[in-house]
């Protein structure tokens, strides 16, 4: 089953996909354009993987790591399907990252990889934007690059694990303004899902609702204000996002302030 969390008619609802429409938990049928899409899982502890596809690592002039490169994200960064992500006026390189997101279903500690899928409740799609201008070499990639408000769209659907036969063989695609700019397959992950669950649970407890963003393949492209970015994972969903400028967020850049001072 495909499940969503949406805001509709003044309240937050759980909903399921039915014949191309949404059925709210109270039974109402609504069109997908009539709702505000929220992240399908309320984020608590969210892990993200850097350089987990060898071709993407090479693209960034890194060799694939010998141990998973893991960082964490806070709840502030997540937005739902069909939302807007801010591109600050002063940046030169902001790229999307299409990723399969794995949702943990029950507490996991010292789980062996053979049993790892028993701890997965489902999957969704994430777009783990990065602004490379802000990279520094301390706890890299740091939160200013990877935990910005609006910079991690997630959704639209939470898809039950039992509906995905082989999560390690799914096509990932990103479209910018309708053109395919990134294409890969989850089979090319350096560390696969069972390995990641075994690795993380070997030193800490994973809890229900925790999410692992499993990394992105090659094909990073700079995205500009106004671009429509769709990240798609086969069988999981098609996550639509639009890049918006500072004006949308009522942010006046310092250079504009200077300019306005000069003219007044």
């Amino acid at each position, binding site marked *: 089953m495909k499940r969503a969390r949406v805001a509709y008619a003044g309240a937050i609802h759980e909903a399921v996909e039915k014949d191309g429409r949404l059925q709210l938990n109270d039974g109402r049928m609504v069109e997908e354009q009539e709702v505000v899409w929220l992240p399908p899982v309320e984020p*608590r*502890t969210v*892990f993200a993987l850097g350089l987990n596809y060898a071709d993407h690592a090479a693209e960034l002039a890194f060799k694939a790591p010998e141990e998973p*490169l*893991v*960082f*964490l*994200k*806070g*709840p*502030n*960064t997540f937005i739902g399907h069909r939302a807007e992500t801010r591109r600050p006026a002063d940046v030169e390189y902001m790229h999307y990252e299409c990723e399969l997101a794995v949702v943990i279903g029950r507490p996991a*500690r*010292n789980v062996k990889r053979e049993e790892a899928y028993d701890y997965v409740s489902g999957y969704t799609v994430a777009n783990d934007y990065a602004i490379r201008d*802000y990279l*520094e*070499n*301390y*706890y*890299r*990639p*740091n*939160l*200013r690059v990877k*935990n*910005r*408000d609006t910079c991690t769209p997630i959704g639209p659907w939470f898809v039950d694990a039992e509906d995905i036969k082989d999560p390690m063989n799914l096509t990932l695609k990103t479209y910018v303004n309708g053109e395919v700019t990134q294409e890969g397959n989850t089979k090319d992950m350096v560390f696969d899902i069972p390995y990641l669950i075994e690795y993380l649970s070997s*030193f*800490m*407890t*994973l*809890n229900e609702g925790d999410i692992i963003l499993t990394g992105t393949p090659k094909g990073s492209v700079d995205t500009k204000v106004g671009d429509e970015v769709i990240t798609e994972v086969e069988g999981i969903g098609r996550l639509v996002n639009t890049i918006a400028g500072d004006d949308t967020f009522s*942010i006046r850049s310092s250079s504009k302030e200077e300019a306005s001072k000069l003219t007044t």
Partner: protein
Amino acid sequence: MLKAKVKFRGVPQSDEVNVRAAEGVVEKNGNQLGLNELAFDAPVSGTIYGTLLNYKGALEALGGEVNEAPYKAAPKAPILYIKPANTINSHSLPIPLPEGVSELEIGAALGVVIGRTATRVSEEEALEYVAGYTVVNDVSIPHASVYRPAIKQKARDGFCPVGPWVVNREEVDNPDSLITRVFINGELRQENTTANLIRPVAKLIADVTDFMTLNAGDTLLVGVPENAPLAKAGDEVRIEIDGVGCLENKVVRENELAGGGF
């Protein structure tokens, strides 16, 4: 007496109490009890964000290394990390010492607890967004390199004791002039002051909320001082922050904890 918020263990609601921070005395409805007569949960519920290298001495300890590979330059923006939900621990509960690890770094951190949604707040207004202050032990497995995120070293179960309470903001005249002390088995092992922060509290809140929202209930750690004391199995660790509180935990091997044998 200072006004503070606590979450007593086994009680569903948070409570408002009066405390004497240095002595560890809690007063409610005219009755006074000592720290050891009470059981606490962590008094915070949101996301805990740590700040790396925010003490002048901590950055100085890296010295010329900051200009060499892999760092190549001194940090410009605040360097943050997350202490995830599994790390949150409370006063008087054990800090698990993972198998194969002999010593833990004790990070004496002032925790700034956020009171309302803070997005792009100015330095001048930043403290208005603070609900209060607490003591946090930002525990780490020692690691020399800070090039890659240190999840394995900082995000272990129980690696973030918080509490015992949150002292209301109005009770702290100046968060940038608080003495922090670490005692191990009663012996003073570290003393520093938040006067040594590179980014003082208001500036840190302003610079962090420039790119990420802090929500009510989130806690921002201002940093840990240089030369973090090391603690081994059996050590009693006490962190004091003047006018805020004192937080005590014992380091216990994880396989000796209830359920730790699994």
